[in-house]
Protein backbone atom coordinates (compact mmCIF):
# COMPACT_ATOMS: atom_id res chain seq x y z
CA UNK A 1 0.00 0.00 0.00
CA UNK A 2 1.19 3.42 -0.76
CA UNK A 3 0.36 6.80 0.59
CA UNK A 4 0.63 10.35 -0.29
CA UNK A 5 2.24 13.11 1.60
CA UNK A 6 0.45 16.41 1.40
CA UNK A 7 2.90 19.14 2.25
CA UNK A 8 1.58 22.61 2.94
CA UNK A 9 3.72 25.70 2.77
CA UNK A 10 4.68 27.11 6.18
CA UNK A 11 3.01 30.51 6.78
CA UNK A 12 5.43 33.36 7.27
CA UNK A 13 2.95 34.88 9.74
CA UNK A 14 2.98 33.70 13.34
CA UNK A 15 0.64 34.96 16.01
CA UNK A 16 3.04 34.73 18.91
CA UNK A 17 2.36 37.53 21.39
CA UNK A 18 5.22 38.58 23.61
CA UNK A 19 5.14 41.09 26.41
CA UNK A 20 8.17 42.75 27.97
CA UNK A 21 8.42 44.91 31.09
CA UNK A 22 11.68 46.49 32.19
CA UNK A 23 13.36 49.02 34.41
CA UNK A 24 16.29 50.98 33.09
CA UNK A 25 19.30 53.04 34.10
CA UNK A 26 19.56 55.92 31.64
CA UNK A 27 22.53 58.01 30.67
CA UNK A 28 22.50 60.99 28.34
CA UNK A 29 25.30 61.52 25.85
CA UNK A 30 26.72 64.15 23.56
CA UNK A 31 27.06 67.91 23.29
CA UNK A 32 23.39 68.72 23.71
CA UNK A 33 21.09 69.95 26.45
CA UNK A 34 20.19 66.50 27.75
CA UNK A 35 23.83 65.36 27.69
CA UNK A 36 25.44 68.46 29.17
CA UNK A 37 22.85 69.56 31.70
CA UNK A 38 21.33 66.33 33.05
CA UNK A 39 22.11 63.12 34.90
CA UNK A 40 20.09 60.00 34.21
CA UNK A 41 17.90 58.96 37.12
CA UNK A 42 15.61 56.03 36.29
CA UNK A 43 13.35 54.66 33.62
CA UNK A 44 10.89 51.95 32.69
CA UNK A 45 9.28 50.58 29.59
CA UNK A 46 6.93 48.09 28.07
CA UNK A 47 6.82 46.50 24.64
CA UNK A 48 4.30 44.25 22.98
CA UNK A 49 4.93 42.10 19.95
CA UNK A 50 1.70 40.44 18.85
CA UNK A 51 3.07 38.59 15.84
CA UNK A 52 6.07 37.81 13.72
CA UNK A 53 6.61 37.76 9.97
CA UNK A 54 9.41 35.60 8.57
CA UNK A 55 10.66 35.32 12.16
CA UNK A 56 10.89 39.08 12.58
CA UNK A 57 8.90 40.19 15.61
CA UNK A 58 6.75 43.26 14.97
CA UNK A 59 5.53 45.36 17.86
CA UNK A 60 5.04 48.64 19.67
CA UNK A 61 6.63 49.99 22.80
CA UNK A 62 6.64 52.81 25.32
CA UNK A 63 9.76 54.04 27.08
CA UNK A 64 9.99 56.59 29.92
CA UNK A 65 13.20 57.92 31.43
CA UNK A 66 13.80 60.68 33.95
CA UNK A 67 16.83 62.93 34.20
CA UNK A 68 17.83 65.29 37.00
CA UNK A 69 19.01 68.74 35.96
CA UNK A 70 22.64 69.43 36.84
CA UNK A 71 23.16 72.75 35.05
CA UNK A 72 20.32 75.25 35.38
CA UNK A 73 21.92 77.89 33.16
CA UNK A 74 21.70 75.45 30.21
CA UNK A 75 18.41 73.65 30.87
CA UNK A 76 16.45 76.35 32.65
CA UNK A 77 15.35 76.45 36.26
CA UNK A 78 13.68 73.06 36.36
CA UNK A 79 14.13 70.01 38.57
CA UNK A 80 14.01 67.29 35.95
CA UNK A 81 13.35 66.34 32.35
CA UNK A 82 11.25 63.34 31.35
CA UNK A 83 11.80 61.66 28.00
CA UNK A 84 8.86 59.65 26.65
CA UNK A 85 8.88 57.64 23.44
CA UNK A 86 6.11 55.69 21.74
CA UNK A 87 7.55 53.60 18.98
CA UNK A 88 7.06 50.77 16.56
CA UNK A 89 9.79 48.20 16.20
CA UNK A 90 11.04 45.13 14.44
CA UNK A 91 13.29 42.62 16.18
CA UNK A 92 14.89 39.32 15.34
CA UNK A 93 15.31 36.64 18.02
CA UNK A 94 18.44 34.51 17.74
CA UNK A 95 18.42 31.31 19.77
CA UNK A 96 21.67 30.62 21.62
CA UNK A 97 21.08 27.11 22.79
CA UNK A 98 18.15 25.93 24.85
CA UNK A 99 18.15 28.56 27.53
CA UNK A 100 19.53 31.71 25.97
CA UNK A 101 18.51 33.99 23.14
CA UNK A 102 19.59 37.32 21.78
CA UNK A 103 17.20 39.80 20.19
CA UNK A 104 18.44 42.87 18.35
CA UNK A 105 15.77 45.52 17.78
CA UNK A 106 15.26 48.53 15.54
CA UNK A 107 12.51 51.05 16.21
CA UNK A 108 11.21 54.54 15.50
CA UNK A 109 8.49 56.74 16.91
CA UNK A 110 7.28 59.98 18.43
CA UNK A 111 9.04 61.67 21.34
CA UNK A 112 8.21 64.20 24.02
CA UNK A 113 10.76 65.76 26.37
CA UNK A 114 8.90 67.29 29.27
CA UNK A 115 10.57 69.81 31.58
CA UNK A 116 9.22 70.03 35.09
CA UNK A 117 9.62 71.38 38.55
CA UNK A 118 7.92 69.66 41.47
CA UNK A 119 4.84 71.80 40.94
CA UNK A 120 4.62 72.83 37.31
CA UNK A 121 5.43 71.98 33.71
CA UNK A 122 7.84 74.43 32.10
CA UNK A 123 7.31 73.32 28.54
CA UNK A 124 7.64 70.34 26.22
CA UNK A 125 9.86 69.56 23.27
CA UNK A 126 8.41 67.19 20.69
CA UNK A 127 10.07 65.25 17.95
CA UNK A 128 11.05 61.91 16.52
CA UNK A 129 13.30 59.13 17.74
CA UNK A 130 15.25 56.21 16.34
CA UNK A 131 16.05 53.31 18.60
CA UNK A 132 18.67 50.58 18.34
CA UNK A 133 18.62 47.92 21.04
CA UNK A 134 19.61 44.41 21.88
CA UNK A 135 18.51 42.05 24.65
CA UNK A 136 20.09 38.90 26.07
CA UNK A 137 17.40 36.61 27.37
CA UNK A 138 17.45 33.69 29.77
CA UNK A 139 14.47 31.36 29.70
CA UNK A 140 13.56 30.67 33.30
CA UNK A 141 10.53 28.53 32.76
CA UNK A 142 8.10 28.89 29.82
CA UNK A 143 6.50 31.32 29.24
CA UNK A 144 8.71 33.43 31.51
CA UNK A 145 12.15 34.77 30.65
CA UNK A 146 14.41 37.35 32.18
CA UNK A 147 16.44 39.64 30.01
CA UNK A 148 19.13 42.28 30.20
CA UNK A 149 19.91 44.69 27.44
CA UNK A 150 20.85 48.09 26.20
CA UNK A 151 19.26 50.57 23.88
CA UNK A 152 20.59 53.62 22.15
CA UNK A 153 18.03 56.30 21.29
CA UNK A 154 18.66 59.27 19.05
CA UNK A 155 15.96 61.94 19.21
CA UNK A 156 15.40 65.01 17.06
CA UNK A 157 13.20 67.85 18.31
CA UNK A 158 11.27 70.61 16.60
CA UNK A 159 12.67 73.70 18.26
CA UNK A 160 13.33 77.39 17.69
CA UNK A 161 16.58 78.84 18.98
CA UNK A 162 19.41 81.09 17.92
CA UNK A 163 21.14 79.41 14.93
CA UNK A 164 24.32 78.97 17.01
CA UNK A 165 22.32 77.05 19.63
CA UNK A 166 20.03 74.94 17.46
CA UNK A 167 22.23 71.87 17.46
CA UNK A 168 22.48 72.02 21.24
CA UNK A 169 18.72 71.82 21.68
CA UNK A 170 17.35 70.00 18.64
CA UNK A 171 18.78 66.56 19.40
CA UNK A 172 19.63 64.13 22.17
CA UNK A 173 21.29 60.74 22.46
CA UNK A 174 20.71 58.39 25.35
CA UNK A 175 22.04 54.97 26.28
CA UNK A 176 19.85 52.91 28.60
CA UNK A 177 20.78 49.68 30.36
CA UNK A 178 17.68 47.69 31.22
CA UNK A 179 16.60 44.58 33.09
CA UNK A 180 13.20 43.00 32.77
CA UNK A 181 10.80 40.13 32.34
CA UNK A 182 9.39 38.71 29.16
CA UNK A 183 6.22 36.69 28.75
CA UNK A 184 5.55 34.54 25.73
CA UNK A 185 1.79 34.57 25.91
CA UNK A 186 1.26 31.60 23.62
CA UNK A 187 2.72 29.91 20.57
CA UNK A 188 0.20 29.17 17.75
CA UNK A 189 0.75 26.20 15.42
CA UNK A 190 1.74 27.32 11.95
CA UNK A 191 1.65 23.93 10.26
CA UNK A 192 -1.25 21.57 9.69
CA UNK A 193 -0.80 17.90 10.51
CA UNK A 194 0.10 15.71 7.53
CA UNK A 195 -0.47 11.95 6.80
Amino acid at each position, binding site marked *: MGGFLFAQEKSPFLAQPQLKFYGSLPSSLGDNMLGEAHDGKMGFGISVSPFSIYNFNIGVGFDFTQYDVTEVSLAG*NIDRSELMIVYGFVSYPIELGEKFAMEPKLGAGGTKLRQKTSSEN*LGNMKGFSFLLATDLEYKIIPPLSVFVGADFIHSSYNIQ*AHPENEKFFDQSQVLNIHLGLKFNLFKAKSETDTK
Partner: protein
Amino acid sequence: MKNLSFLLVFLCLISCGLEYDGSTRIEFKGRILDEAGLPLKNIPVKAIAELRTDFIYGAHDSDVVSYGKTDENGEFKLFFSSPINETDLMLWINSDDSENPVNPAYSQIIYYHIEEDDTPDFRLDIGTVELIGLEDLVDLRVHFTNSTPFWIHGSNFEGKMKMKYWNMSPNLEDEFLYAYPLRVKPNQTIEVQYYYYTDNSELMSGMEEITIGNQDLTYEINL
Protein backbone atom coordinates in the same frame (compact mmCIF):
# COMPACT_ATOMS: atom_id res chain seq x y z
CA MET B 1 -17.70 94.76 44.14
CA LYS B 2 -14.72 94.29 46.43
CA ASN B 3 -15.77 90.65 47.04
CA LEU B 4 -15.98 90.12 43.28
CA SER B 5 -12.46 91.52 42.82
CA PHE B 6 -11.09 89.20 45.52
CA LEU B 7 -12.82 86.27 43.79
CA LEU B 8 -11.32 87.23 40.44
CA VAL B 9 -7.83 87.51 41.96
CA PHE B 10 -8.25 84.10 43.64
CA LEU B 11 -9.44 82.45 40.41
CA CYS B 12 -6.55 83.97 38.47
CA LEU B 13 -3.99 82.83 41.01
CA ILE B 14 -5.16 79.24 40.76
CA SER B 15 -5.59 79.14 36.98
CA CYS B 16 -3.60 81.96 35.36
CA GLY B 17 0.00 80.98 36.06
CA LEU B 18 2.98 81.50 33.77
CA GLU B 19 2.99 79.19 30.76
CA TYR B 20 5.94 78.15 28.62
CA ASP B 21 6.75 77.03 25.11
CA GLY B 22 9.42 74.36 25.60
CA SER B 23 10.14 74.26 21.87
CA THR B 24 11.41 77.87 21.90
CA ARG B 25 14.71 78.35 23.72
CA ILE B 26 15.70 81.89 24.69
CA GLU B 27 19.28 82.90 25.48
CA PHE B 28 20.53 85.83 27.57
CA LYS B 29 24.25 86.47 27.28
CA GLY B 30 26.77 89.12 28.13
CA ARG B 31 30.10 89.98 29.68
CA ILE B 32 30.71 91.72 33.00
CA LEU B 33 33.82 93.81 33.67
CA ASP B 34 34.98 95.96 36.55
CA GLU B 35 35.96 99.63 36.23
CA ALA B 36 39.51 98.65 35.32
CA GLY B 37 38.21 96.60 32.39
CA LEU B 38 39.00 93.28 34.03
CA PRO B 39 36.51 90.40 33.81
CA LEU B 40 34.45 89.74 36.93
CA LYS B 41 34.07 86.07 37.83
CA ASN B 42 31.22 84.50 39.84
CA ILE B 43 28.84 87.43 39.49
CA PRO B 44 25.33 85.97 39.85
CA VAL B 45 22.88 86.52 37.00
CA LYS B 46 19.29 85.40 36.67
CA ALA B 47 16.39 85.61 34.26
CA ILE B 48 12.92 86.22 35.70
CA ALA B 49 9.50 85.99 34.08
CA GLU B 50 6.56 87.74 35.68
CA LEU B 51 2.84 87.58 35.11
CA ARG B 52 0.76 90.27 36.70
CA THR B 53 -2.64 88.75 37.37
CA ASP B 54 -4.26 91.67 39.09
CA PHE B 55 -3.44 95.24 38.25
CA ILE B 56 -5.45 96.58 41.17
CA TYR B 57 -4.02 94.58 44.02
CA GLY B 58 -0.68 93.83 42.36
CA ALA B 59 -0.92 90.06 42.57
CA HIS B 60 1.51 88.27 40.26
CA ASP B 61 3.18 85.02 39.42
CA SER B 62 6.95 85.15 39.18
CA ASP B 63 9.44 82.48 38.09
CA VAL B 64 13.22 82.50 38.06
CA VAL B 65 13.47 80.78 34.69
CA SER B 66 17.25 80.43 34.66
CA TYR B 67 20.27 81.45 36.71
CA GLY B 68 24.03 81.13 36.74
CA LYS B 69 27.31 82.95 37.34
CA THR B 70 29.90 84.62 35.16
CA ASP B 71 32.94 82.53 34.25
CA GLU B 72 36.63 83.45 34.46
CA ASN B 73 36.21 85.65 31.35
CA GLY B 74 33.31 87.50 32.95
CA GLU B 75 30.92 85.89 30.47
CA PHE B 76 27.54 84.36 31.14
CA LYS B 77 24.87 82.52 29.16
CA LEU B 78 21.40 81.71 30.42
CA PHE B 79 18.99 79.45 28.52
CA PHE B 80 15.31 78.84 29.25
CA SER B 81 11.97 77.89 27.73
CA SER B 82 10.22 80.93 26.32
CA PRO B 83 7.36 82.19 28.51
CA ILE B 84 4.26 82.81 26.41
CA ASN B 85 1.97 84.83 28.65
CA GLU B 86 4.36 86.91 30.72
CA THR B 87 3.81 90.59 31.43
CA ASP B 88 7.52 91.12 32.00
CA LEU B 89 10.83 89.39 31.32
CA MET B 90 13.91 90.59 33.21
CA LEU B 91 17.63 90.03 33.56
CA TRP B 92 19.11 90.69 37.01
CA ILE B 93 22.87 91.12 37.36
CA ASN B 94 24.35 90.87 40.85
CA SER B 95 20.90 91.52 42.24
CA ASP B 96 18.77 89.47 44.56
CA ASP B 97 15.87 91.58 45.71
CA SER B 98 16.24 94.73 43.61
CA GLU B 99 17.51 96.59 46.67
CA ASN B 100 20.83 95.02 47.59
CA PRO B 101 23.63 93.53 45.49
CA VAL B 102 24.46 89.86 46.03
CA ASN B 103 28.18 90.62 45.84
CA PRO B 104 28.28 93.67 48.12
CA ALA B 105 31.48 95.01 46.56
CA TYR B 106 29.86 95.80 43.22
CA SER B 107 26.85 97.56 41.76
CA GLN B 108 23.81 95.83 40.30
CA ILE B 109 21.84 96.12 37.07
CA ILE B 110 18.27 95.10 36.26
CA TYR B 111 17.10 94.98 32.64
CA TYR B 112 13.33 94.79 32.41
CA HIS B 113 10.51 94.99 29.86
CA ILE B 114 12.54 92.68 27.63
CA GLU B 115 10.29 92.20 24.61
CA GLU B 116 10.37 89.99 21.54
CA ASP B 117 12.06 92.79 19.56
CA ASP B 118 14.95 92.64 22.05
CA THR B 119 15.56 88.96 21.35
CA PRO B 120 16.08 88.70 17.59
CA ASP B 121 16.84 85.09 16.74
CA PHE B 122 15.84 84.22 20.32
CA ARG B 123 18.92 85.84 21.89
CA LEU B 124 19.43 88.92 24.06
CA ASP B 125 23.08 89.95 24.03
CA ILE B 126 23.67 92.84 26.43
CA GLY B 127 27.30 93.06 25.28
CA THR B 128 29.94 94.18 27.74
CA VAL B 129 28.71 95.99 30.85
CA GLU B 130 30.54 97.42 33.81
CA LEU B 131 29.90 96.98 37.50
CA ILE B 132 31.38 99.66 39.71
CA GLY B 133 32.91 99.47 43.16
CA LEU B 134 30.69 100.97 45.83
CA GLU B 135 33.16 103.16 47.67
CA ASP B 136 33.14 106.98 47.67
CA LEU B 137 29.74 107.46 46.07
CA VAL B 138 27.81 110.72 46.02
CA ASP B 139 24.08 111.42 45.92
CA LEU B 140 22.22 112.59 42.80
CA ARG B 141 18.69 113.93 43.05
CA VAL B 142 16.79 114.74 39.84
CA HIS B 143 13.71 116.96 39.86
CA PHE B 144 11.46 117.37 36.84
CA THR B 145 9.55 120.62 36.45
CA ASN B 146 7.11 122.01 33.89
CA SER B 147 4.81 124.97 33.58
CA THR B 148 1.82 122.67 32.95
CA PRO B 149 0.80 119.46 34.74
CA PHE B 150 2.83 116.43 33.75
CA TRP B 151 3.73 112.97 34.88
CA ILE B 152 6.92 111.02 34.31
CA HIS B 153 6.29 107.76 32.51
CA GLY B 154 9.82 106.49 33.08
CA SER B 155 13.51 107.14 32.85
CA ASN B 156 16.79 105.42 32.05
CA PHE B 157 20.08 106.58 33.57
CA GLU B 158 23.35 105.67 31.86
CA GLY B 159 26.51 106.03 33.94
CA LYS B 160 28.39 104.65 36.91
CA MET B 161 25.78 104.09 39.61
CA LYS B 162 25.10 101.71 42.45
CA MET B 163 21.74 100.51 41.17
CA LYS B 164 20.80 100.72 37.50
CA TYR B 165 17.34 99.88 36.27
CA TRP B 166 17.25 99.74 32.50
CA ASN B 167 13.85 99.75 30.79
CA MET B 168 14.34 97.95 27.45
CA SER B 169 10.94 99.19 26.21
CA PRO B 170 10.46 102.77 27.45
CA ASN B 171 7.04 102.96 25.84
CA LEU B 172 5.97 100.57 28.58
CA GLU B 173 5.51 102.12 31.99
CA ASP B 174 8.41 101.81 34.41
CA GLU B 175 8.29 98.77 36.68
CA PHE B 176 10.99 100.23 38.85
CA LEU B 177 10.80 103.85 39.85
CA TYR B 178 14.06 105.34 40.94
CA ALA B 179 14.18 106.08 44.63
CA TYR B 180 16.13 109.26 45.02
CA PRO B 181 18.83 109.97 45.88
CA LEU B 182 20.71 107.87 43.34
CA ARG B 183 24.11 106.73 44.57
CA VAL B 184 26.60 107.49 41.78
CA LYS B 185 30.33 107.71 41.22
CA PRO B 186 31.78 111.22 41.45
CA ASN B 187 33.44 113.02 38.54
CA GLN B 188 31.50 111.59 35.64
CA THR B 189 28.74 112.52 33.19
CA ILE B 190 25.42 110.72 33.53
CA GLU B 191 22.98 110.64 30.64
CA VAL B 192 19.28 110.47 31.50
CA GLN B 193 16.58 109.61 28.99
CA TYR B 194 13.10 110.41 30.25
CA TYR B 195 9.57 109.89 29.00
CA TYR B 196 6.58 111.89 30.11
CA TYR B 197 3.05 112.98 29.41
CA THR B 198 1.48 116.42 29.72
CA ASP B 199 -2.27 117.00 29.54
CA ASN B 200 -3.69 115.67 26.27
CA SER B 201 -0.26 114.86 24.87
CA GLU B 202 1.21 111.69 23.46
CA LEU B 203 4.22 110.14 25.16
CA MET B 204 7.10 112.56 24.87
CA SER B 205 10.79 112.06 25.51
CA GLY B 206 13.88 114.02 26.32
CA MET B 207 17.54 113.53 27.09
CA GLU B 208 19.86 115.36 29.44
CA GLU B 209 23.54 115.05 30.37
CA ILE B 210 24.29 115.65 34.03
CA THR B 211 27.85 116.47 35.09
CA ILE B 212 28.63 115.00 38.50
CA GLY B 213 31.41 116.55 40.56
CA ASN B 214 32.75 115.23 43.81
CA GLN B 215 29.80 116.36 45.92
CA ASP B 216 26.13 115.55 46.25
CA LEU B 217 24.04 117.14 43.49
CA THR B 218 20.40 118.12 43.06
CA TYR B 219 19.63 118.60 39.36
CA GLU B 220 16.53 120.15 37.85
CA ILE B 221 15.21 119.14 34.41
CA ASN B 222 12.68 121.52 32.91
CA LEU B 223 10.40 119.67 30.50
